[in-house]
């Protein structure tokens, strides 16, 4: 099981879509840095998410990066969990390996 990190805005960069295309059932994704914009409800982004509902992929957002940007949950059709740096470390341990998309 892979933990994927994504650190770029999906409105500017393709790497979240690239990640979603490659992620497998049971994988985990954490959005960090500008990647946290992926947890907003922009129509542009939601279009590219059909895969997610099919695969059993858990979605996390790094809280300090999310709050710095003034964002709040409840804007997306998808379920994201906010996590702090400590939980981020645990997520790395729960996965077999990490793949970083940047």
């Amino acid at each position, binding site marked *: 099981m892979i933990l994927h*990190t994504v650190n770029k805005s999906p409105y500017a960069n393709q790497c979240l879509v690239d990640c979603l295309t490659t992620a497998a059932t049971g994988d985990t994704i954490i959005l960090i840095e500008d990647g946290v914009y992926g947890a907003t409800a922009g129509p542009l982004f939601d279009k590219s998410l059909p895969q997610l509902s099919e695969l059993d992929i858990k979605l996390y957002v790094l809280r300090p990066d999310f709050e710095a940007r003034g964002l709040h949950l409840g804007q997306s059709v998808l379920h994201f969990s906010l996590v702090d*740096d400590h939980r981020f*470390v645990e997520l*790395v341990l729960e996965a077999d390996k*990490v793949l970083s*998309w*940047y």
Partner: protein
Amino acid sequence: MKFTIVILGAPYSGETADTACRFAEAVIAQGHNIYRLFFYHDGVHNASSLVTLPQDEIQLPQRWQQLIDQYHLEAVVCIASALRRGVANDIEARRFGKPCGNLLEGFELAGIGELLDAAAHSDRLITFGPSS
């Protein structure tokens, strides 16, 4: 568990180094070990003694340094990446006829072999890519 953290981004220019440093601190706070910090690509600027931020801002190189010092971490800066980006210890600076080096104490220059060794000997390896 033993972590290796690979840092590919410079401080200030992007968020990478801040995220990676917070992650390293969280690893330690949870009682895990850091096998190695490996600074590659633009990450080598984290080891520059010449980085000077405004006084009220977090000085990332010194924050790394404190972590390295307090927990006796191995902080390896890729030598090839470093020289190409203007980061050198005194020995390398002298070799290339520069007046003095700028590698912060606590960091060491070494080859990519240290990254491969870390990949083989850590329980987890995480890369923090450039955010710019």
